[in-house]
């Protein structure tokens, strides 16, 4: 019907419609904003890899600052160093990235199904526990692994494995590709879990029921109904997980460095450490390229084959749990055990370490409350008071919460708008460009991002005031850095919303803003909420992105914790990590509670 109207319009009428269409208008505005916030820094990054910098007279006597050079690209891709700097690490990156992604998707998918669709007991409290591994910093998971599988050659106390079995673990279990893949999977499976859970929540059980009535078995239903519907969520999880695992450097450093196992990300970090920024940026661009290729491949081989299913239609909606029968308790025990080992145990380890007077020395007489509630004592930790008596930490806590909440909410709304444009205008190349641009921050070297934002907003540019040292700047960079997540979660959610709902509203005279606010936002809320949680956690834990932009008045918990870690005050930095974890859980519960209320009201209206 709309087509008919369209084709009857004259050319100028078409143009008129195109520019007055609010969706197009929003798209153009977003493109301009993202061009400034994402593309411009990216181009600067690219330029830095193609020109000699001020520092480069130390690399080559021919270096003239500002002049074009292909030196860095040649060095990285074809020089004598390329094998050690790029290709070897690239292979390692692919091995660990692919293995970790597969494991994470499997774990996340199975768990999401159990929690959302089955009648497994204890789901209410398992839900938040299963997101904990992402809250715990990756280095904590790596350290926990190290505590168990420590090789005897590193000295100190024996690892738990060696203590129990009497012999040291084999080398491949202590360091290298195997432990890196597993710990990466543990850290990132909550992505897949949250995304798939969000999509599963919108499956109308009437579809499954009709399949059962038509004679399909349980497995058949799972294969032909459930899985195709959540395929876009899997796809999004695949891209996000793969992208994150190849960009992660803290974990491969802890579990890879002892065995001289390098990935591209650790090479980026190494080059930055040595002050060879341009080489680091070349490798970072390789990483960005890798994840763009992975998106392209997955769209091509998976995306086209799975049709996108609109599960939320104008008709009624019911979600009924699937009975597990005799498997109910065994499955519960398995899931609970898994959740405990990956989610709670690392936190307990951190907690125990934060009350040990002497770090790493187990024994009751060594326990102390000092690092939590103690007053300043010059004999302990340079007289640093316990974290709960520290005024700096109170201020930082407030800043952290403010930043995480505001950024997560803004990022989700903007992400949803971009997702809407991407899905509804899938054939518009500008819409596709918007989608791609929003993904670039994902693998941008965060420290370089921070440095560029320092310059970008130092002076007023047009209508934008100078934002140097303000909280607003922290919000902007946090929002931009979370866009890749919020757009991907948004796409998953919007895909499932039937067009007919909007068309009906449009015929009834609802404007686009009204439609977006009253139809798209509420109906996508379960998926978007998952994305919001991921962003909330991500912002809480972010350090290197904002370290250059922080001022003492905008200090956040992670920057304080960084200072402690730098000084070797393990107990205090562990206590801070725990505070961040607890705050994140509280934040998640609040977000979930808001979301539950919304969904419940919505369901009420529908039925």
């Amino acid at each position, binding site marked *: 019907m709309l087509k008919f109207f369209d084709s009857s319009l004259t050319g100028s009428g078409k143009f008129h419609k195109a520019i007055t269409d609010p969706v197009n208008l929003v798209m153009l505005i977003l493109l301009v904003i993202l061009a400034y916030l994402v593309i411009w820094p990216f181009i600067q990054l690219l330029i830095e890899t193609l020109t000699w910098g001020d520092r480069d007279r130390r690399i080559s006597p021919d270096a003239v600052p500002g002049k074009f050079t292909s030196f860095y690209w040649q060095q990285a891709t074809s020089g*004598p*160093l390329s094998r050690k700097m790029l290709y070897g690490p690239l292979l390692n990156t692919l091995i660990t990235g692919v293995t970790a992604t597969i494991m994470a998707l499997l774990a996340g998918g199975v768990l999401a199904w159990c929690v959302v669709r089955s009648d497994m007991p204890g789901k209410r409290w398992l839900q938040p526990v299963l997101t904990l591994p992402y809250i715990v910093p990756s280095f904590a998971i790596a350290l926990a692994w190290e505590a168990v599988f420590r090789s005897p050659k*590193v000295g100190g106390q024996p690892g738990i494995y060696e203590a129990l079995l009497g012999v040291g673990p084999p080398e491949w279990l202590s360091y290298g590709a195997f432990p890196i893949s597993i710990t990466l999977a543990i850290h990132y499976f909550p992505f897949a879990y949250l995304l798939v859970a969000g999509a599963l929540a919108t499956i109308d059980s009437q579809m499954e029921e009709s399949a059962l009535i038509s004679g399909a078995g349980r497995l058949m239903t799972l294969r032909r109904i459930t899985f195709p519907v959540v395929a876009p969520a899997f796809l999004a999880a695949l891209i996000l997980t793969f992208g994150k695992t190849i960009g992660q450097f803290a974990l491969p450093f802890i579990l890879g460095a002892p065995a001289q196992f390098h990935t591209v990300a650790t090479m980026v970090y190494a080059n930055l450490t040595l002050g060879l920024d341009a080489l680091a940026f070349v490798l970072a661009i390789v990483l960005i390229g890798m994840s763009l290729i992975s998106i392209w491949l997955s769209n091509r081989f998976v995306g086209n084959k799975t049709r996108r299913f609109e599960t939320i239609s104008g008709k009624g909606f019911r979600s009924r749990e699937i009975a597990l029968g005799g498997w109910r308790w065994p499955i519960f025990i398995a899931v609970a055990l898994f959740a405990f080992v990956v989610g709670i145990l690392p936190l307990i380890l951190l907690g125990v370490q934060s009350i040990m007077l002497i770090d790493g020395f187990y024994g009751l007489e060594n326990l102390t409350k000092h690092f939590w509630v103690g007053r300043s004592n010059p004999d302990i930790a340079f007289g640093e008071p316990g974290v709960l008596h520290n005024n700096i930490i109170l201020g930082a806590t407030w800043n952290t919460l403010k930043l995480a909440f505001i950024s997560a909410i803004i990022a989700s709304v903007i992400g949803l708008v971009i997702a809407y444009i991407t899905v509804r205008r899938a054939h518009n190349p500008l819409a596709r460009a918007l989608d791609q641009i929003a993904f670039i921050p994902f693998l941008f070297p965060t420290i370089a991002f921070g*440095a560029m934002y320092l310059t970008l907003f*130092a002076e007023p540019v047009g209508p934008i005031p100078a934002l140097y040292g303000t909280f607003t700047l922290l919000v902007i960079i946090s929002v931009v850095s979370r866009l890749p997540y919020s757009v991907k979660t948004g796409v998953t959610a919007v895909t499932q919303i039937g067009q007919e709902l909007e068309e009906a509203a449009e015929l009834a005279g609802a404007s686009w803003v009204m439609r977006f606010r009253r139809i798209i936002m509420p109906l996508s809320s379960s998926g978007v909420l998952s994305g919001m949680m991921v962003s909330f956690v991500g912002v809480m834990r972010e350090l290197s992105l904002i370290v250059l932009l*922080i001022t003492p008045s905008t200090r956040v918990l992670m920057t304080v914790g960084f200072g402690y870690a730098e000084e070797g005050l393990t107990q205090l930095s562990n206590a801070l990590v725990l505070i961040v974890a607890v705050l994140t859980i509280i934040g998640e519960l609040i977000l979930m509670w808001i979301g539950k209320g919304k969904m419940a009201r919505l369901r009420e209206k529908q039925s």
Partner: protein
Amino acid sequence: MNSFLKTTLTPILAVLTISITSAAIADTNWQKVAGVGEFAPKTQDWATIESAARKEGTVVIYSVSSRIAKLVDGFQEKYGIEIIGHDMPSDLQIEKLRREHTAGINAVDVLFNSDAPLLLNEALPNGLVWNFVPDGLSSDLDAGETQPFLIQRHSSRVVYYNTALNPNGAPIDSLWDLTSKDWTGRTLLPSPLEDGLSANFMQTILNNSDAMAAAYEREYGQPITYSEDVIEAVAESAVIAEPNASIEWLYRFLANEPVFMSSTTKIFKNVGDIEQDNPPLGITTFSKMRKNKKGVYAAAPIYDLDPVFGVSYPTALVMADMAPHPNAAKLLIKYMMEAEGFSPWNEPGDFAARSSIEAVQMDQFKLPSFDALKLWPIDPEQIYFSKYGFLALYLGLQ
């Protein structure tokens, strides 16, 4: 095209030139007011500086150590001036200052920074920072500690051993022992690719190849010969002309499976833990000595290791260009050079640059003087210029 150039570019260029010159004029004016560089007065009038500093009211410092927070109350009480401290790694301080300076933001007064290579080769020549030495300190400091910038203390990365399990003294006496079979897979250190100071350690050894060759002869009783891999790596390198003893040492050291750990504290503890059978050696921060604890950790540096037992690096105090509170900056620098302002960093293994404070430290910690220790100081010039060559060599030897 020509008219385009004239009408469009000329005004732009004019504006640019004006803004650049006005920035330069502003900078000169600031130098006059702040009294640095060529405008530094013959003698410093501390009464005037102090009263001006009190009027300024605050002082902003980028600090490599979070212990700067310990000075806030004392400084406030003494001078009524608030210290605003940003904890930041040394290289990031300079990156931040550079970008702020270009954008015309003048936010910081003092840098407390241990990246001497960057300070010397980027910050000072580009006029980002100024050296300020309070009067009366010169007699208490070596010439190299007041020029090109003021040094507050010397820290080091040194080789540690477990003293409880080696009651007869250190198990090794030469850096070359670290490449022997006895110590395969049993030296802990932060990876030079992850930790700038660990890279400085290796680069400093590379810079002292004659001493390393001599130590080889003392250890093995014959002149050094080079491995085939080393000869090959050097042949491939565009930067290094011929093999030397240090490259050979690095090659053998890497082939001897050193264990890279990121936490210097953990390295100390794994070496010093008294409840183990076969303690490793470790290259870690000298001042970790303070973590020794009776019945738990017992470790000490191997002071008479041949040719050295470690590498030292300075931490500097410099004034930022266009500092908004120049007098408070001077006052804070002076304060941090005095015993009271130095106290947060007073620990065994961190040596005050001022001899008078160092003397108190030696007495307190029962340590020899810094100058008497067998340490190589880093060469900021060499480290800065050979970073890329080092990375290439390191990866080539691995």
